[in-house]
């Protein structure tokens, strides 16, 4: 039976092929059969985790908190210089210049990406906006969030900052950033399930070793991650404590 590797559904689909390549790399390094399973929605991925079907996961910070604290997963590496920051934007044509100009009753375009949604909602608080007085419009992806803003169907939208910055210049020229988070300590984590605990060191070595060969560096390019860094148990616990203050 294969082990299952999965990736937080917020990953950029342009790296899909790269994750298959990383999967192969891990199979060779661990000398075991691993299968990449991609979920396009967070809930289905969580169901698979609850059923004990996920052995390796590149998890977003929100799910990582749950996986580590409740499910006993162990963090083996974090992506180098890649933090999860959130942009709140509006239409460039509209009258809104700052978050405080937004008023109760507006529609907010968002995705089911849990940490971006959480940070976006926090960044609306200075305008006294919250779940009780905004209407959420869930979009499949960030391009659709942008479209909701450009069509005037939503007054504000939440984006993963990295993805916002990769939107086409044409789209970005039609949007106005109201605020961008600068938290610097919230990031994805590569986690290993308790069942695979014995291989945690091998997974860590395989990931951090990528940067040491041309072939490995090309795998990193293919997944859009500059490298993998060590992460201490205390770093992870600190990030989770911090997340805990935000939920």
């Amino acid at each position, binding site marked *: 039976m294969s082990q299952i590797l999965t990736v937080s559904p917020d990953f950029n689909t342009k790296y899909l092929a790269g994750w298959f390549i990383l999967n192969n790399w891990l199979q060779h390094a661990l000398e075991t059969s691993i299968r990449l399973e991609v979920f396009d929605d967070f809930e289905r991925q969580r169901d698979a985790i609850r059923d004990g079907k996920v052995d390796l996961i590149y998890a977003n910070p929100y799910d990582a908190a749950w996986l580590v604290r409740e499910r006993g997963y162990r963090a083996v590496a974090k992506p180098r210089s890649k933090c999860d920051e959130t942009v709140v934007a509006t239409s460039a044509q509209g009258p809104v210049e700052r978050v405080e100009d937004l008023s109760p009753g507006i529609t907010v375009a968002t995705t089911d990406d849990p940490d971006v949604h959480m940070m976006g909602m926090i*960044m609306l*608080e*200075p305008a006294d906006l919250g779940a009780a007085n905004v209407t959420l419009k869930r979009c499949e992806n960030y391009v659709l969030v942008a479209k909701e803003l450009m069509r005037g169907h939503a007054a504000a939208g939440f984006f993963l900052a990295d993805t916002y910055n990769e939107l086409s210049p044409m789209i970005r020229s039609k949007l106005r950033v109201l605020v961008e988070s600068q*938290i610097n300590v919230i990031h994805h984590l590569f986690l290993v399930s308790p069942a695979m605990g014995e291989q945690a060191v091998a997974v860590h070595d395989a990931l951090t070793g990528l940067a040491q060969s041309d072939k490995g560096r090309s795998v990193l390019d293919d997944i859009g991650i500059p490298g993998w860094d060590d992460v201490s148990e205390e770093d992870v616990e*600190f990030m989770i404590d911090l997340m805990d*203050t935000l939920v």
Partner: protein
Amino acid sequence: MNDIQACDVEGEATRHTLTFCDGSTRTVHVVDREVPFPEGKLIVSRTDPEGIITHVNRSFVFMSGYAEDELVGQPHHILRHPEMPAVAFKGLWDTVGAGEKWHGYVKNLRKDGAYYWVYATVVPNLRGGKLVGYTSVRRKPSRRKIEEAAALYRTLT
């Protein structure tokens, strides 16, 4: 912990003597000048179980006006503003002491006598079931919430 002296602050200052729950006192000069919360940032600190600061992030250092090494090792009441009622902090300590999460609006005193408002959350930090300290994360509060908190605190101090 040093006092905040008249010469440390710019503008018309009022003088207060704070008495902390450990019995110590501090004389501070405060000015009525608000420093805006930095957009998009979180102000983060950690303490040991007694409330002694063990870690601060850059936004914390920046907003407090102190250098990092003036903060780490000090009791967290280094930011106590005279307009904050003692009962608010009693609520904080009772809540986190019971292992729960605390939220509240806090007016903090800077080294230069000015102030900044935050919406703070404090959580206990457990490692292997053992309490090792507390983490506090502050975010930007709305103007309306600040005014409500200020009005309430005036009735409590």
